[in-house]
């Protein structure tokens, strides 16, 4: 592990350096939100933000993605595969919760006999430069899910704002290699590292929102038919924003657009999601759909991959139009007496 520092005013020079061989994607302030976009000479990366509106999953799993195109003639058809994306990418300013989400997505999308090549090809070419959180929000609950405001899971480099400069910590060899080419970075002083550590422990303590997940998966095993689902789904509008903005939700629909087969984000919160050709719908009301979302995150995924499918980023809490708080749902499950 190596420690470096960079003056804040020199950060754009670092981005410029990285952009020589990579496509740099980073947070950008636009109107009232921060979104991750391609950084060019026309815009400047912004590292003074809470979190991006949309999670970084969209870089690897875009909202709309062409799987292949085709041409058909009277008695023939030809498939034209989309060229693999070979360009190297550097994602700058990824928060620890979001970086963890990529590790979970990697697990899921590379599992089984058939791998999701579209996601994995892009992922393979990407380097993640994380950014530690010094000021967690009231909706943040990463520490309950095994994360931390200065967590390094899924990152190649970790940046931390230590007032006048960023402390850079190398996490992987890939990250180290990226820095090798930038000779003008200074080695971090002991005081810088100490300062970073202090900020990290302060941030850790600042994540006040806590939920206990210790027995949630087990309880959910016995709660499939619990009347609780009838109650919690009552105020849900079924808009799906919780799933679209979730850094781990990756359900998709496949459809035709012109002479293209595309996949688009889909949501288990929608009526048509599981509707069968016969008209039968195994999840006909909000109750079943809410249950699917919670079960998938805190029970099904735990059974299949040993972890919750949630990183505690709090986007679903912030953006829900009716203030349905996933932390309350988990707390209620945790407090529930089941036989």
């Amino acid at each position, binding site marked *: 592990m190596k420690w470096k520092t960079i003056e804040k005013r020199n950060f754009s020079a670092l981005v410029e350096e990285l952009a020589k061989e990579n496509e740099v994607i980073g947070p950008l302030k636009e109107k009232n939100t921060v979104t991750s976009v391609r950084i060019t000479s026309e815009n400047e990366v912004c590292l003074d933000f809470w979190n991006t509106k949309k999670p970084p999953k969209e870089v690897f799993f875009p909202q709309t993605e062409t799987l292949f195109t085709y041409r058909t003639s009277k008695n023939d058809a030809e*498939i034209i595969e989309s060229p693999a994306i070979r360009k190297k990418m550097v994602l700058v300013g990824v928060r620890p919760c979001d970086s963890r989400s990529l590790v979970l997505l990697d697990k899921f999308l590379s599992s089984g006999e*058939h791998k999701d090549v579209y996601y994995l090809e892009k992922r393979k070419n990407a380097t993640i430069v994380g950014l530690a959180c010094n000021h967690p929000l009231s909706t943040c609950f990463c520490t309950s899910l095994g994360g931390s405001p200065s967590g390094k899971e899924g990152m190649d480099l970790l940046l931390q704002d230590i007032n006048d400069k960023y402390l850079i910590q190398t996490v992987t060899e890939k990250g180290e290699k990226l820095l090798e080419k930038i000779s003008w970075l200074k080695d971090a002083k002991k005081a810088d590292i100490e300062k970073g550590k202090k900020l990290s422990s302060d941030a850790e303590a600042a994540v006040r929102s806590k939920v206990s997940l210790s027995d949630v998966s087990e309880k959910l095993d016995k709660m499939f038919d619990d009347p609780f689902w009838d109650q919690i789904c009552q105020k849900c509008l079924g808009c799906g924003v919780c799933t679209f903005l979730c850094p781990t939700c990756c359900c998709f629909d496949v*459809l*035709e657009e012109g*002479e293209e087969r595309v996949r688009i984000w889909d949501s288990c919160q929608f009526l048509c999601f*599981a509707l*069968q*050709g*016969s008209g039968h719908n195994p999840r006909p009301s909000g109750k079943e759909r809410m249950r699917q979302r919670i079960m998938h995150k805190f029970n099904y995924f735990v059974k299949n991959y040993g972890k919750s499918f949630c990183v505690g980023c709090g986007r679903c809490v912030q953006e829900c139009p009716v203030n349905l708080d996933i932390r309350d749902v988990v707390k209620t499950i945790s407090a529930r007496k089941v036989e």
Partner: protein
Amino acid sequence: MNNPYIPNLVVIRKITTENEARDIKTFELVFKDPKAMRSFGYRCGQFAEISVFGAGECPIGIASSPMEEDSIQFTVKRVGVVTTALHNSVEGTVIGVRGPYGNGFPMEKMEGRNVVIVGGGFAFTTLRSLTNFILHEANRDRFKEITVIYGARDPGELIYKYDIEAWGKRKDINLNVTIDRAVTGWSGLVGFVPAVLKEVAPSSENAIAIVCGPPIMIKFTMPVIDELGFSPEEVYLSLEMRMKCGIGKCGRCNIGNKFVCKDGPVFTFEELKMMPREY
């Protein structure tokens, strides 16, 4: 990395209308690339994703027996956008197929045992694949008694009449074809599948049962299966759910933590009892 989303190109060689309502057709497909046919190697009970270019993709059970080497068949009911486009296609049209997917029937477990095949309506497609596979001269010796119970609403809705006729001439299959209500001109069995199963009463001794059908048939068949003494681990059912990718990624066909596309579609009755009732 192998891209599982790219279909193989196939030509529709033959279209057979299966029922009186003309909304069920069997499509015989030939791979454009013979190598792709060989690498497609499938087992009874698996399914594939069929692409109709311009309409989309949908999962369909494979209706032909793996013993047929030069083509694969799918029997498709016209219900939605893709199946309607497929029904409107003519022989010679090029479409796409990717797969095979799913676990299929437990062929190894059936060897040396009696096999009871119970099916209703349009769900008989993969059971037809199974029956033809077992009855093939290269395989028949490996299985003991074969009992088939197949029901449809009326004679016009019976699919695979040509197969039923051929099976009926054989001595090595106990074939019971039934329709729901008596009609003139029908001399065969009359009654619902569960009632006929009860009457035929195949022994559960050294036997495996395979059941496919509409939910209502399953509901009334399972108690009869139970009465006949089949233990839940020896009874296999094939499930249906809405699917998009067929490979466990699109996230919609799960029942509990199992995906019907990759962990199923065939489950034992015992497994099914452990799963949440959401299908």
